[in-house]
């Protein structure tokens, strides 16, 4: 059963299971992660198999969850904590940016913080307020954290393995609207390093960069563009911090045009950092400014408006056309 087709959520479940199984120091903590198996069933069955001292239903207090996870890490544990939804990470924000991110540096390297913070994020599931946000920028700006987001089942599985093995805190953003997307997972072959981007599709006319839930959209956009005779390269960034600028640069030096797509608001979003850095690196290669497609500078809207708010096929293709028009 080396390779198996499974849903992205199931891949994370399998990865957590493997980690719990192979390392007694690994813990899973969060609200409803135990008996219920999480509101998305990502931790389904884990408490049953590993007991409630390994898979822990916590009090309803996110700062407490991350704060105690820090203490457990100091004691030698490797906690994987779940934040139930993106919008609920902020009560824990202080512990994450002030303690979790800085403890290793503060101690001059004496203590390590192998804590994974799992956050189901992003929109597209028709949810109520606070259940559809994409706050990755707010973590990427903070030194000491690593920020990753898988786009498919195989990455979900392996990036979780690598995140748990990392001695640094990793904010692991799960693209919740892709939880049910199935993909091949080979549980024996590590696909590559955690923070390396992957060329999902080769192309020559323009590079589309995305991560997490937007990778699939970019693939669809590339399909659509291909029908119009445009060859788009699609890059799955996989990691937001660190960011694999080398891979973006290599692609842009070839295609000379770049469009970045993410759900998070454009203003101060990942696209800004990518545009700034790639423009600096590829100043003489770029035929067009780096264009950004993302959320607007507005709170995530009610569900009936989310299709207008979120980047969709047309908006991506519109940006592609604008970039190609330069």
């Amino acid at each position: 059963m080396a390779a198996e087709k499974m849903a992205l959520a199931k891949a994370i479940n399998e990865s957590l299971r493997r980690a719990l199984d192979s390392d007694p120091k690994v813990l899973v903590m969060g609200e409803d992660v135990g008996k219920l198996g999480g509101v998305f069933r990502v931790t389904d069955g884990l408490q049953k198999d590993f007991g409630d001292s390994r898979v822990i239903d916590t009090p309803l207090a996110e700062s407490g969850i991350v704060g105690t996870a820090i203490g457990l890490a100091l004691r030698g544990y490797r906690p994987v904590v779940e934040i139930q939804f993106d919008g609920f990470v902020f009560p824990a924000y202080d512990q994450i940016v002030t303690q979790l991110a800085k403890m290793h540096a503060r101690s001059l390297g004496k203590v390590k913080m192998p804590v994974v913070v799992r956050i189901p994020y992003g929109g597209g599931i028709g949810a109520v307020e606070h259940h559809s946000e994409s706050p990755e920028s707010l973590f990427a700006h903070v030194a000491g954290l690593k920020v990753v987001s898988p786009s498919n089942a195989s990455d979900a599985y392996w990036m979780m393995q690598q995140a748990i093995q990392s001695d640094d805190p990793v904010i692991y953003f799960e693209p919740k609207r892709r939880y049910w997307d199935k993909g091949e997972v080979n549980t024996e072959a590590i696909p590559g390093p955690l923070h390396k981007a992957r060329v999902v599709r080769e192309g020559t006319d323009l590079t589309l960069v995305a991560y997490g839930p937007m990778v699939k959209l970019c693939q669809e956009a590339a399909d659509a563009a291909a029908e119009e005779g445009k060859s788009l390269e699609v890059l799955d960034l996989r990691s937001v911090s660190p960011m694999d600028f080398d891979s973006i640069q290599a692609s842009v030096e070839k295609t000379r045009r770049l469009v970045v797509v993410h759900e998070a608001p454009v203003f101060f979003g990942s696209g800004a950092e990518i545009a700034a850095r790639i423009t600096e690196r590829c100043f003489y290669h770029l035929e067009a400014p780096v264009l950004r497609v993302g959320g607007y500078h507005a709170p995530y809207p009610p569900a009936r408006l989310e299709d207008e708010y979120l980047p969709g096929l047309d908006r991506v293709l519109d940006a592609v056309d604008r970039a190609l028009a330069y």
Partner: protein
Amino acid sequence: MTVDSSAASEPRRSAAGKAGTTGSKTGTKRTTRTTSRSTTRAATGSGTRTSTDPELVQLLTPEGKRVKNAEYDAYVAGITPEELRGLYRDMVLTRRFDAEATALQRQGELGLWASLLGQEAAQIGSGRATREDDYVFPTYREHGVAWCRGVDPTNLLGMFRGVNHGGWDPNSNNFHLYTIVIGSQTLHATGYAMGVAKDGADSAVIAYFGDGASSQGDVAESFTFSAVYNAPVVFFCQNNQWAISEPTEKQTRVPLYQRAQGFGFPGVRVDGNDVLACLAVTRWALERARSGEGPTLVEAFTYRMGAHTTSDDPTRYRGDEERLAWEAKDPILRLRRYLEASNHTDDGFFAELEAESEALGKRVREAVRAMPDPDKFAIFENVYADGHALVDEERAQFAAYQASFADVEGV
């Protein structure tokens, strides 16, 4: 026959007026009593909850028998049969509204619904204790309190349908928007109450939250601020035994009402399925607030009969027996038994209420189905009160982008 909640507001005002005239200083003694037993529990050092529940304030037994309570009887002493029928009607209509919303979710008209089934007494009893000038800060499940405040129930459905994040003007009924992030509103309530005190008004504020929410740091901070500033706020915790899949033992190892004492104000546990007791205790607590005695914690001991929300499947984490045991304590049945035994009602009352109930269901159904999707440009509205250049720019880009489709369609 009206089926909007404002029809029910009369008993509220008159009842509250009466409560205001009764004594308000009895709380001191009670707290002492209820917390002294807690001490014993607290000191055992055990992390497990004992199965015996601590004493709670009850005025109506599950069988509908009125029991005496030396301390709280005064707060419902003058209650009339009509007011009692009003409470009954509130609970029945609220439950009906709730059931309708659950059905509408199943039919795809709502994206989600958080049912209050089982918590009608806690909500109607406390809601009816409020005065018009009081201010209410709900969580996301206080449909019964909203009803008492005169918020049109169809307004509550917008956010669950996904057309807005809150469809009513908080200041029209002094009923704040639903707050989804657990516990946050307790601080808003405290701040609001600090403002009430600054204004020299004798209004009170009531903040609702759940047993799960009690663990949030914000709730503790609201206890600290309200105690230090002696703010006129009542913290009304509906302990419905569950925070999604987590039983209350995952939040505390002693009864929640005891939390207040360490912050310097009284806490009391009331039978949350006894609407009369909830009315009395909340009146007492609001009266304390009004008369400058500061905050109070009321823990309404009740039960979430249904799923956490329509997305939840409670069979994964709790058994039927528990539910059955609580069904025997049903808040509506209990009051009905009392009303019938007291000859306060006749068949006509129930028949009329049934019809009213049906009409409410119909109105809600129709209103939801007629609820239009918001205008696309609503995304950009109200992000700021005074405007923001980037929002203007993005709105304009969005308009141009939308227009480009119109062009295409126009071709």
